[in-house]
């Protein structure tokens, strides 16, 4: 007994010494990932990594394929997540106190202002990257079968991203935030333009309802702040993460990034020879691809021109993550996030501007609240959602501007898109619109005939013409989408840089009265 007791103690001692090694082994079951096989099983056996397929197609790794825009969006989200959690330690979501806590974050919290700057820049990078990511997906026709549903998820991610950014806008509780959200709430209230014109607002006030749902009261106040805070730090991030998980999962399920049909020819042997990076000794062939829809691997060319995700895809991912971080840090050091005076409901900002990505809408709202607030956004959201279901063509999938028309159609569409939007804006700024010419014109007429609807009509007419000319839905979609991007850019730029007090046109802010 004495003996065995002693040996048991020895055993415990031995186990204790061996524990660190065993912890490592049980955590990383497949051993050091030194061969493609062990790397594959490492990826496959890891909860977080197994969202990737074990092997990645060379086409997907080319910079020109995706420009890393989806990764940049994800990276920017991770940065806002980390910095946002840090900010939450100090931020207090109550009017006035919120502003004080912003000041504390600026002046007392160690590197607080830097962290806030990063958060703000990452949020903007995310909005831009998400929009560009959508453009990339569109212009490479990657939304096509079998990726239609993932396009819809992406569509939801765009909305969620804008909502996250918008809800975050109010939190500093400064003049900028207060009046931007007031404008945003007024945009939400814009169906009133129609119900007022029809005289049914008293019975059927959708606009007022939307505004109250958004703000939790009639004005931007404590209710709106706590509501926006909850949405910003909890509900919307959860929605976003869930949608992101589905989005990534669908990429895998749909066979990775969309590729042209003749991808093997396009790649040739050149890319293949630049590998391996590490030792590349498959112990046996395995066909994970068997459960993924797609063609059987071409004989003699490795499985589907693919490379082990570890390390090749991971380098790309981490590279983009660090690159995005670098950009956000650099911007954060160069430019401070704005913090104006404390919110004061009695002193309206003039001009009061919504966050920049809504300034295109605000520009149209300045012509007609309904058109800018509901009409055109609804058309855009509906149109974007319908794209993969209207365009059922096959030609050019996975290629930049593949399909009918190609780059020349794109160039023409840029011309029409910029030309029409700049032209309409210039006309409206220079000559005014119906209200200036006929002061008594009914509001309904302006709701239906204003620069926003005219621009939409021109774009629609142009794309119908393109559909007929090329006899292709895809060509029409390229025309319309390009025009939409041009209009978005022009209206946003005008709203951001050329609108001053009372939404008047000014070449520079130094021309504003009082300067």
């Amino acid at each position, binding site marked *: 007994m004495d003996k065995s007791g002693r040996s048991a103690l020895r055993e415990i001692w031995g186990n204790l010494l061996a524990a660190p090694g065993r912890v490592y082994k049980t955590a990383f079951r497949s051993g050091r990932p030194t061969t493609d096989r062990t790397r594959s099983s490492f990826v496959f056996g890891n909860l977080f990594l197994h969202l990737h397929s074990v092997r990645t197609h060379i086409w997907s790794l080319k910079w020109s394929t995706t420009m890393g825009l989806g990764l940049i969006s994800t990276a920017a989200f991770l940065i806002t997540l980390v910095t946002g959690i840090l900010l939450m330690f100090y931020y207090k979501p109550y009017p006035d106190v919120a502003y004080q806590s912003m000041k504390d974050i600026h*002046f007392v919290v160690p590197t607080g202002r830097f962290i806030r700057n990063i958060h703000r820049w990452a949020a903007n990078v995310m909005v831009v990257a998400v929009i560009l990511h959508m453009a990339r997906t569109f212009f490479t026709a990657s939304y096509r079968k079998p990726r239609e549903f993932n396009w819809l998820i992406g569509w939801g991610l765009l909305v969620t991203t804008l909502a996250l950014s918008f809800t975050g806008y109010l939190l500093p509780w400064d003049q900028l935030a207060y009046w931007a959200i007031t404008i945003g709430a007024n945009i939400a209230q814009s169906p009133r333009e129609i119900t007022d014109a029809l005289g049914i607002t008293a019975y059927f006030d959708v606009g007022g309802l939307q505004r109250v749902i958004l703000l939790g009261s009639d004005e931007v106040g404590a209710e709106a702040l706590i509501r926006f805070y909850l949405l910003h730090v909890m509900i919307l991030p959860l929605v976003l993460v869930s949608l992101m998980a589905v989005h990534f999962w669908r990429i895998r399920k749909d066979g990775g990034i969309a590729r042209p049909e003749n991808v093997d020819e396009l790649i040739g042997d050149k890319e293949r020879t630049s590998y391996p990076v590490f030792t590349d000794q498959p112990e046996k062939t395995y066909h994970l691809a068997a459960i993924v829809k797609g063609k059987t691997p071409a004989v003699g060319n490795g499985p589907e021109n693919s490379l082990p995700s570890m390390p090749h895809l991971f380098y790309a991912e981490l590279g983009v993550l*660090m690159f995005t971080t670098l950009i956000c840090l650099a911007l954060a050091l160069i430019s401070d996030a704005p913090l104006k005076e404390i919110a004061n409901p009695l002193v309206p900002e003039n001009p009061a501007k919504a966050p920049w990505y809504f300034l295109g809408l605000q520009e149209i709202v300045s012509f007609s609240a309904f058109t800018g607030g509901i009409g055109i956004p609804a058309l855009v959201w509906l149109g974007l959602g319908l794209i993969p279901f209207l365009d059922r063509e096959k030609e050019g999938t996975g290629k930049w501007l593949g399909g009918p028309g190609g780059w020349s159609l794109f160039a023409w569409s840029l011309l029409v898109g910029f030309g029409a939007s700049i032209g309409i804006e210039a006309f409206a700024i220079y000559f005014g619109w119906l209200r200036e010419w006929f002061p008594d014109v009914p509001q309904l007429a302006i709701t239906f005939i204003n620069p926003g609807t005219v621009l939409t009509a021109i774009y629609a007419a142009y794309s119908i013409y393109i559909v007929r000319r090329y006899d292709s839905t895809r060509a029409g979609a390229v025309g319309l989408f390009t025009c939409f991007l041009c209009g978005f850019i022009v209206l946003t730029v005008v709203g951001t840089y050329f609108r001053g007090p009372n939404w008047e046109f000014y070449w520079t802010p130094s021309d504003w*009265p009082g300067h």
Partner: protein
Amino acid sequence: MKKNKYLLLLSSVGVFALLVYAAVSENFLKEWHTIQSQARTTEGPIDVRLRQIVNPSLGTTDRCVTCHLGMSPGETIVSDLRAASAHPPVVHSPAEMGCTTCHGGQGLATERLDAHGDVEFWPEPMLPARFAYASCGTCHVPLEVPNSERFELAGRTFERLDCYSCHRLDGRGGTLRTSPSTGMEGPDLSQTGIRGFDSGWYQGHIAKSEESGSELWAKSFREISEPDQELLNTFLSLQMGAPRLIEAKATYNSVGCAGCHVTGNFGGEIGVDLSRVGEKDPNRLNYSAIEGDHSLSNWVAQHFRLPLSTVEGSQMPDLALSDDQIDLLTFYMLSLRRRSVPDIWLPKDRVRSMRFGVREFSSDPETIYKAVCSACHGANGGGMRYPGLAPYPSITSREFLELASDEFIAATITKGRPGRAMLAWGERENGLTAEEVGALVAYIRALGNGVDFIPDARPRHWAARDPRNGETIYRANCAGCHGALGEGGEGPALKNAAFMDAATDTFLFETIAQGRSGTIMEGFKTPSPVRQALTDSEIESLVTYLRSLSASGKDFGK
């Protein structure tokens, strides 16, 4: 695909470098770190940490002392640093009140420009040092301040009577004391306006000088005449440790601003309410016509020089103020600020002003005239003509004072002239009382060299000619200025019940006949090359017509 590896490598190196830079700049490059690491007390270096004065009831969190170490409570810095200088002795302890309560600026900030409020989005930059005492106006409101002549006279009297030899006032005087034991030094009088003072001080002094038999008392104290005693009382009641604020307010009370502007509990509503003008956000002002720096003090000063070019459409006349007056008025404007503080922080003067309606200017007729009337009727009552504004009539001319009874002038002051700039000074919040109006009428007569009213034997309403005839004459001669139906134009409205009630027919008749000096109203009895002179009977029918214009031309039965 090595470029992904390089992207990862270079980005990571870049991120690391930026993070190191951010950490270094956060921990070593901040100005307050530098200042604190140089500072020493007698016991050696101080802790490098954030310092602040917090006063929850005033709502201040002032981190100014993070750099201004010499003003940090309980720390004596011996290093030769600008930031090491201690706060000059003042009435309120900075350790209790914090810094921004008086100086403005951004207490939460820890960087120089932000803290001093010299940034775009801070509405309350620090008051310039020479205007620092304007901040007393945040809580205090000096009451019953006389016009500046009287205030200066009171100050000179205090000096002339050598009160400074025994008393200290704002750090000056009290030098007669020969040795600490003699106890000759009188009490410090710097805050008599706040703390109060013995109203029987003069009798006390007399008694002391008689009974003590001391040589010093005998040498230093003489009898003081009653007017001088009164001046000294006025002077003492104004001492609150902020001499320039009182001087500024006395200036405000001398140039007639209250005739158009409200401050606190009294004033006319023609101009903007100035009660909180010192809180204007300098970032939101229009500087297109302003030379020099974009500060509130500069804007206000320029506005006094050129009101119309500073504020578009301003009705404010150019009062031809001297540079000294402008500086003092600017000081006073900056003092018109408030802060919401709990009641326990409200000083007595503010409470008296808010709750009991005590006015901010003293109630002697001279100060009332200068504070309320002088901007329009002129310092001597001769009337004023400002470009772009209807002329303000003389009220001290012989023909006016002979024609206008005391009752008429008093009624005009009390009830005003509806539709004109003349407001109803007796019928407003904290308005003039009947006694004050009476004294003011006497003061106006004195300004006009004591011209008395020539009583009129006739009843108030005696004119009874054909009003239709009067109407024809009115159309031809009067309608151009007084309006087609007497509604007023460049000249005052004549279809005006208050005026018609107060004016006798004689007053109307004589005014038409003789005109009103200092205004464009000329005497119509005098021939002129551009029109015919009116005869007595024509003027009478005109008066009859004017009576018929006003619906409520009540007869007082006189």
